[in-house]
């Protein structure tokens, strides 16, 4: 499994506890419109991602991330940095 595929799997796994509506997840899934997360859910989810990958996703970066695919790419970039 490629590094990106592994990250995608971990990310989608971490989304599940917050995926109340059971939305099918792909790179194109959006957090705001498809998953309908409010700001509190986003905060808890981001903390879970940060702890799992031992990274920091600043609020500046979070503002640019709208889809699962964008998050996976951001995590990959931060892990490599």
């Amino acid at each position, binding site marked *: 499994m490629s590094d990106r595929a592994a990250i995608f799997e971990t990310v989608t796994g971490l989304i599940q506890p917050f995926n109340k509506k059971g939305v099918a997840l792909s790179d194109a899934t959006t957090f705001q419109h498809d998953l309908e997360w409010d700001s509190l859910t986003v905060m808890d989810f981001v903390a879970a991602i*940060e702890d799992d990958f031992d990274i920091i996703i*600043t609020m500046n970066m979070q503002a640019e991330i709208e889809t699962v695919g964008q998050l996976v790419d951001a995590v990959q970039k931060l892990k490599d940095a």
Partner: protein
Amino acid sequence: MTDAIDTAEALPENPSPIAPERDLMSKFDGLIAERQALLDSGVTDPFAIVMEQVKSPTEAVIKGKDTILLGTYNYMGMTFDPDVIQAGKDALDQFGSGTNGSRMLNGTFRDHMEVEQALRDFYGTTGAIVFSTGYMANLGMISTLAGKGEYVILDADSHASIYDGCKQGYAEIVRFRHNDIEDLDKRLGRLPKEPGKLVVLEGVYSMLGDVAPLKEMVAVAKKHNAMVLSDEAHSMGFYGPNGRGVYEAQGCEGDVDFIVGTFSKSVGTVGGFCVSNHPKFEAIRLACRPYIFTASLPPSVVATAAMSIRKLQHAHNKRAHLWENARQLHGGLTRLGFKLGTENPDSAIIAVILDDQTQAVMMWQALLDSGVYVNMARPPATPAGTYLLRCSLCAEHTAEQIATVLERFEAAGRAAHALN
């Protein structure tokens, strides 16, 4: 000629309609509908209260009714102090109604210097800078201190002015869980070592009235070589031996680099400030846009603030009475069976936690109708999506007033089914 000019400049009576998708005001349709639904349920608009008369720091007339004020942040009751009022009147007579200018140009008068000296004396610092509001003090300090490539680390429950200070600047912004020492440590540990970092904390968080474990959090910040700013807006005058705030009460004065505060709570007027012992602190005046590009406070405001701060330094009886009031109200509400924001009376804010908006509005209305004004707070201002009735105490509340408030809370709580 005159008529022609008037006609040319007047707004058209029937402006050409803008398609809804291009009308910039369309984005507020949801808010307008939500507010209308609330008003249609027959309640008084909680966000449109008018004080027709203010009789004292603890009493006003609202809709023709005498009302006990229990939601004003007028902690030390300085707004009707005769010396404070006289100082304002004298300044009005001697210096006029306003400054017309920036602190940097023509807007610094005698009493702007005097109030900054009063702050240096109160806080025992070498530096003090006054801003036009507390909001602008946070906006200015945070956006100016942390630059591009540097970091601001803030508590998730921070006040809007702290969040907005982050947005106004160019630094990277990192949040940690509210009052969570371990989470702050973990996040600081993941950041690169080199860039400068500012950790922003608050002594008292105003929604629930909970106090920060500043001593531990400041120690963690220092371990990671970060500078610390503490907002002490809700603690000035009644925490610590000199009333400086939670940071003084917890003994971390030596490690907090910047203290932000406001004149609109314990001081009893309007304005904001930052105090610091940093040797280069004065440079803020040269670089901080919310300090430079706005008019300074009117002379009467800074004169009242200076007098009030000088009196707060010695207001030991007021301080003791404020804490007695907090204990009486907290104890009484607990005995009645209300769910409160803090287990103990840790601050002068006591938040009653309710189930939902309907119950909160119903109870808020019942309290107002019985002559008690409290703040209603709802998401997104509140943490974890809670609906709150927030009470803030005043040193001038009498024990009888608090007893009356408790009776009215009991009645309102039963009417709104918040009590069994």
